[in-house]
């Protein structure tokens, strides 16, 4: 009875999105008429949001089939549409992909949207944008542990606001240099995070040399280990192609490739903009990680002391406990995406998702300015994490999308208690080990941690282990 009710609910909910359903036993993810139309979804408004999120959850867990268009026999994993020079991709390849049948295949621990064990690692390379590779040798590729997606809507909103701040600083300093006919200097500071500085000259030229931890276009890209993806939407399109061989029309369709079936999978236009939006809506509304409920007294006391130590020894200089957020309204498309990822100018109206209306919003603290304090334990900035003597995280040989091999985005520590193993490639089994591996910009904090007595170190671990992903 329960099962029947569920099916009826889903059918009714999807009706407002115009989604047709196949038979209950249908292997297909996309039976005829089941692709979502973006404009129709946007026009349906907030009432359709639950169905959109549910459809996103369904697509996230779906195992894409051949008749859905899965696989990319004649295209590479590149984020720029790129044909294979010769040969045919196998249905799956653990290195250059497709390497998974579903998003959930990796993002599953402890629940959908989460992290994964080491077995689900993937491989990227600088040739990632252009070529096939068939080796996990670091000369060719870099190994990546699965990042949990919890709270990613909030993360993207933070990054958008930081980008707006940084670009406003740039515009102001350019205007000042122009008006005063003198060089003008500005610190790039947003939400308490300093991204270096810029100098604008009266002729309009802006020196980029002193920018730190963010790309030179001053777009804060908060996703991936390297911080190279701007939005959930961009990440989703990339991942659909790389991992599943499902190619979104907005990147791989006729407009940018001259073909409706660029990968030659035999299925034209396999992912619509509306389908991507469903996946975005699901990910954006995933609740953020929390502090573990019902801690035993000794753990609670240890965690409290550990949090204090965490601050005192300088971990929080990068792993900032909270970043303030002005608005909880998530719009899709995102404001800073570029061609190949749907942009606001390409739709009649965007989809608005008010994260403030979701249950988790009640758990967020606010400061005296009314800003929401997002407890992500990150500055969303890239840092050098390796030095001459502490260099275990410098195992890679290749830059990734202009980010040097030993530079990484500060990982968000919310949920870290649920996402072992640790590090960009998941090669550290214990929190103590990954802390000890911090070099470069984090060396001072790491050294301070290593100098603590074992009890205090254990308190820090107690604190970190209390930051968990829990079902809500």
């Amino acid at each position, binding site marked *: 009875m329960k099962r029947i009710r569920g099916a009826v609910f889903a059918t009714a909910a999807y009706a407002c999105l115009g989604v047709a359903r196949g038979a209950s036993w249908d292997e297909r993810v996309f039976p005829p008429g089941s692709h979502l139309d973006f404009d129709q979804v946007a026009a349906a408004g907030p009432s359709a949001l639950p169905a959109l999120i549910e459809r996103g959850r369904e697509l996230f867990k779906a195992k894409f089939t051949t008749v859905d268009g899965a696989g990319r026999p004649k295209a590479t994993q*590149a*984020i*720029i*549409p*790129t044909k294979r020079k010769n040969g045919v991709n196998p249905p799956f390849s653990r290195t250059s992909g497709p390497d998974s049948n579903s998003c959930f295949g990796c993002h599953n621990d402890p629940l959908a949207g989460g992290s994964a064990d080491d077995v689900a690692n993937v491989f990227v390379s600088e040739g990632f*944008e*252009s*070529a096939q590779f068939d080796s996990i040798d670091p000369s060719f590729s870099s190994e990546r542990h699965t990042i949990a997606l919890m709270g990613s809507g909030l993360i993207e909103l933070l990054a958008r606001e930081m980008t707006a701040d940084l670009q406003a600083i*740039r*515009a102001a300093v*350019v*205007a000042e240099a*122009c008006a005063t006919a003198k060089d003008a200097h500005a610190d790039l500071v947003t939400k308490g995070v300093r991204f270096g500085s810029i100098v*604008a000259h009266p*002729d*309009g*030229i*802006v*020196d*980029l*040399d002193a920018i730190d931890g963010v*790309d*030179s*276009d001053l*777009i804060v890209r908060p996703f991936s280990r390297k911080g190279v993806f701007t939005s959930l939407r961009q990440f989703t399109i990339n991942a659909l192609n790389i991992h599943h061989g499902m190619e979104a029309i907005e*990147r791989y369709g*006729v*407009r*940018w*490739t*001259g*073909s409706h079936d660029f990968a030659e999978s035999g299925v034209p236009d396999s992912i619509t903009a509306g389908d991507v939006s469903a996946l975005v809506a699901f990910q954006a509304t995933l609740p953020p990680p929390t502090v573990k409920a019902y801690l035993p007294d000794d753990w609670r006391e240890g965690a409290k002391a550990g949090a204090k130590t965490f601050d005192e020894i300088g971990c929080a200089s990068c792993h900032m406990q909270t970043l303030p957020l002005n608005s909880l309204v998530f719009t899709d498309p995102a404001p800073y995406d*570029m*061609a*190949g990822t749907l*942009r606001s*100018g*390409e739709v009649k109206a965007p989809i608005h998702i008010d994260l403030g209306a979701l249950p988790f919003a009640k758990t967020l603290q606010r400061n005296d300015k009314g800003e929401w304090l997002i407890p992500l334990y990150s500055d969303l900035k890239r840092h050098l994490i390796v030095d001459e003597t502490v260099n275990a995280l410098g195992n890679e040989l290749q830059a990734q*999308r*202009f980010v040097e091999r030993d530079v990484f985005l500060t990982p968000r520590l919310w949920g870290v208690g649920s996402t072992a193993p640790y590090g960009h490639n998941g090669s550290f089994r214990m929190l103590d080990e990954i802390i000890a591996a911090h070099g470069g910009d984090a060396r001072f904090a790491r050294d301070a941690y290593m100098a603590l007595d074992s009890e205090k170190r254990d308190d820090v671990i107690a604190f970190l282990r209390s930051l968990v992903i829990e079902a809500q």
Partner: protein
Amino acid sequence: MIRIVFCILAILVSMAGARAGEDRQKPLGDVPLMHEEAEAAGLHSVYDGPWEFFVGGGGAAFDCDGSGFPSVFLAGGKNPARLFVNKSKAGGPLKFEEKSLDIGADPKLLTNVIGAYPLDIDGDGHMDLFVLRVGSNLLLKGSPNCTFTLANHEWNFDGDSGWTTSFAAEWEPGQKFPTLAIGHYVDRDAPGSPWGTCADNSLYRPQPGDKPDYSVRLALAPGFCALSMLFTDWNKSGTPSLRVSNDRQYYRGGEEQMWRIDPGKTPRLYSRADGWRHLSIYGMGIAEGDLDGSGYPQYFLTSMGDEKLQKLDPDEGGRGEAPVYRDIAGEVGVTAHIPYAGGDKRPSTAWHAEFADFNNDGLSDIFVSKGNLEQMPDFAAYDPSNLLLGQWNGKFAEAGDEAGIACNAKGRGALIADFNLDGRLDILQINRGSNALLYRNLGAKNGDGLPLPMGNWSEIKLIEPNPNRNAVGARITIRTGTRSQTRFVDVGGGDASGHAGFIHVGLGTAERAEIRVQWPDGDHSPSYRVFANQFVVVDRARPQAAYWYPGR
């Protein structure tokens, strides 16, 4: 209003023509929506005059006030040439204000102007102009705030009098100032003129000294009525040659030419022994581009009737061993031999050509200005300019009518530039007998809806120490993923028209690009990593590229 009605009528006519030519390839990607706004922008300039001004009709686009926005100098033929200073705001409607030209000499020198090219001859950071005339040519020295003074005397240039219809320049190794090539049309004083009386062309190498000195002329003979010339490194040897496109209407025994210009040596024509093949066309305009990413330029040659698209013949030309070219215009669909719209089946008359990416998809497109000579009965009367959009299958698809540039005008020279610095290339087409057309690129056509944003882009400016501070002769390679695009920094080509400033490249869906420069002296730069949708300044003296932002 008149202009609007004029264009609407032309579009209606073009729709009729489109029905007639339904078999033509439809563009699969974005079609840029080009909005004509010359009158609204305050741009009014008519190129006109007697027989001498049937040809020419060019101009120059360049930053003359340090704003970064390209202003324009437009030839008027019998009418005075005019300077319009760009007052547009970034991303906004186009706006120009005319600035009266006081060149410190007889104002009549600004009449009988055929065209112009911008270049910084004296390396002072201000663009100068070479002004092509019927009569004595002008070297106008640029100064701040869009002011110019005649510098023929100061720079020992006698004006190379004649009927000048083409120009090109390069910086030869070791020279402080550019070498100037000047192409002439008919020698009207020769017996039997105009038939078989094409004048010789000229090469001026700078003489030693601390200021430009063009007192010594070398004749480039024979001349075959050169309507376009271009220094081009056709074989990637590092030493540009001078291609000359000639009008068969008046020469006898002539052909297309290419001069080998080795530094310090007397120029010599490439001959049959070198592999150069006879080609006789109504050569009007040369454009160079790199359609296949090989780095070897391909050449688009405008004519009356068939246009040519020449590619180095892989069998006989090899990798630049011999200048043997194959015409691939038919293969890729760019012959553009008759009007694509309007139903007139008589041959087209093509003038200016330029490779550019108008829809930012990362594929080169080709713009060709068209227009009857005057009232030539054997050639199409309604002859709209072409916008040939590059397709992913290597071919081109006509989109002039869909884009909105199929206006009925006698097109001549053209300036392809981003006049409002929004990352999209606009078109200024100079017309004989009517006002110039100024098309603002609004974005991708979207039915009746608002235009859509197009692909990503980059605009690149090169700076190197004097003498050649704008790096004329450089080659820029832009790499995105597995694809490479090439841009050439030229002074010359087209129909008496040239532009200087940011060099535009479309990036499609690429968010990042790597830029590498082969400087004019042959040295390669390091690879500069840049993000899309930025104005990039590559200064040879600095280890990193910088970005530039418009001040308004």
